[in-house]
């Protein structure tokens, strides 16, 4: 079964929201699938995509890969000059 881009994007949003909400969560695709009640395969695509655009950190490969939220760079004291 192929998954439409639309579904993937929706899932991607869901994942992003999940990790923003749980910035200290460490998740495997399998674990997250269970939590979100989603299929593993589309989730893997989405997680890797999020890792590729550096929203998530990925460590390990395959089934053992763990994803976690990568806090964006923040600087609240940039002088304008």
């Amino acid at each position: 079964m192929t998954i439409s881009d639309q579904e993937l994007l929706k899932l991607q949003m869901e994942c992003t929201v999940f990790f923003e909400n749980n910035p200290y969560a460490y998740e495997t695709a399998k674990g997250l699938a269970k939590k979100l009640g989603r299929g593993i395969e589309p989730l893997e695509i989405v997680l890797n995509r999020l890792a590729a655009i550096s929203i998530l950190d990925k460590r390990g490969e395959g089934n053992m890969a763990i994803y976690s939220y990568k806090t964006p760079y923040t600087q609240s004291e940039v002088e304008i000059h």
Partner: protein
Amino acid sequence: MIEKSWIMDVKKTVEEIQQTYAEFTRLSILIVDGHGRPLVKPSSHHPFFKKLTDADGETRDRFWQEVRHYAGLTRPALCDLWLPGVKFIIAPFKSPDGDAVYYVLAGVLIQSGTKQMLEEEVAGAGLYNEGHKLLLDLVLEAEELSGEEAEIWREKIGKLAETSERVLRSAYREAYVRERLAELRDVMSTTRRDRGTVDQAFEQFLSVSGGTDVMGYAEKIGPGEYQISRLAGEGASLLQDAEFREGEGFLGQAALSDTPMQWTDIQRDPRASFFKQHGVSEFYGLRCFPVRVGMEKLGILFIVSKKKVQADSLMREFEEVLIALVGEYIASGTIEARMERQIQRLRPLMEVTRFMISAQNIQRIMFMLVDMSLSLVWNPSSAIIVHESSSGQKVQIVSRGIANDLAEQYAREVAKRVLHENSSVNSPGFELSQTEEGQLMMEYPIVYAGKTRGVLAVSLSSEQEAEECREVLLALATMGSIILQSVHDQRQLGLQNERFLRLMYASAKQREDDQGKKADLSLRLLDEYARYGGITAEEASLLQRANMLSVLDDAARSELSDSFANELEILNEHQLMLESEGRTGSFSYSRPAQLLRTVLYFAELDEETAGRLHLTGVSPELFNHFRKFMAVRHTVQSEVMLSDGTPAAFNPAEAEERGIDAIVKEFGLSKREKDVLELVVRASSNKDIAAKLFISEHTVKNHLTNIFNKMSVSDRAQAIARVFNRGIG
């Protein structure tokens, strides 16, 4: 030809014309196809013509044998048929499809002075029975014509042939086009129902168009870059996915043009090497049509004809229409897909919005905006949000995918360009800019509270991409602005209300000294307890507000009931707890109420006396925890400076000033009364006011009475409330 009502109309038209000519020439006229089949009803009542139109019969056969002798005719001619002297005009014309010759037959014409002679000849000729009689009738009925007259009739019938040809051809065209349009409609409706069969539709288009050999569509995939994405027809499969650039070869040339282009006899043209390279061995002509939406070029539709064909202009015309349709189809498909993609992106935005609204924290909202903008773009490289910080001279940034120093450098640049100079509201939209490194940035202003306060910027690899995501990013940025506005509003409202409450509290405190002291201590204890970690900062300020409310009188409290519903609820519970103190039974009070009870209890205690070990309705754990805190608080206290809790962002002085000015105007206060009111609002006591204005306390009281009367309020608290309401209203 299709038998449909409109064809009947065409026939009628031809019949009408034929009839007109027949009456005018007083000839019988018959229009037939190449096989002698009549196209319309003959304009004659003559039995002979009836026989000619019969499906078979000796007369018909014999007559057509005679006519066939003249098969090569290209112009109208006077022909002797059956007997020399019995003349018919035969006017050939092209069949509508151009493949065959049709005829107009008109007769019978007899040279002047020959009728008598012909009658005899007919009688003498060895004709079969029926023929003999029919021919005789024809000759007898026929008028005698001079040679000149016959010549005129020949021309006229020629005209009739031309007219018929035109009418029939246009009818044919119409039929052809309609037929194909009907097919096209079918194709369109199927493809619209099911977008999955685009290639199939393409194939169908090709079959509908008839004579075309290879039809293809080259899609613009980047600036100046095209790729053949769809293909139909045989012998060109290698063209699939082939890429070319603007200006390269025929297709590349077509890409530069805004109008359709056409080339023939291109086998030897070097510009055709693209086709050769991609395995197209047979080609003669090429036609290209730009596909556009508005000013934006989406791609090129092209048709490769393999052989030279004697293309009928009708066909060509139709093909052009068809191509235009295909172009439209592709364009609409592209737009639809684009919209679909945007809807795809927008739909999850709804979820995100809900989440963002619940966040109520600027930093988290900024995180989300950055993450979401990266998620919504197909090939993102980085996103950054620059937001003014409360101090004004600095900005805060949240970024991803961009080196930290570059992010800061960019933030400075944006701040100077967008945030600094421009204090008015930007029209919603976006700007494309380039960083010093040449990175293309799409920038969306974050506008709220009447000012551009930030910029959401997403870097993109191409303008094409910018085009694709600009709507959805605009939606995101707008949404972000709205949510930040709501956070801002909520804070502002909270600040104003709290500031207001503090003023009311400060004024109420003066009436009751003991209670005031106790309440002040409670406020301090709550601050300290929060630092100690016993309660959160939010809990502390909630309880502080409840504590301040407890000092106000009922009228002042009810004035504030809308803004501080939670706090008043806690106060009510607190009252119940006070009343139930010492009673037995099971009680269930909220945690804030239990905390308030405990804090107020300890605030009331003389510190040097040991107090109760338990309060009714307060959980022992909570009580003991606070007791422990009380034991160590002096060490904590010495380490911290107490803040007065007035946030810097809100300017209360301005609000007060506005409020007082409004009140002075509205109620006609004197200069002195205004001075007194100003001091009242700043929570000065009568004594202070007297000292500051160099008047006696008694005079202060008199002023106050006048002020209260003018303002129709009964006490300071209400007066302050008025001023404040005017100030923020």
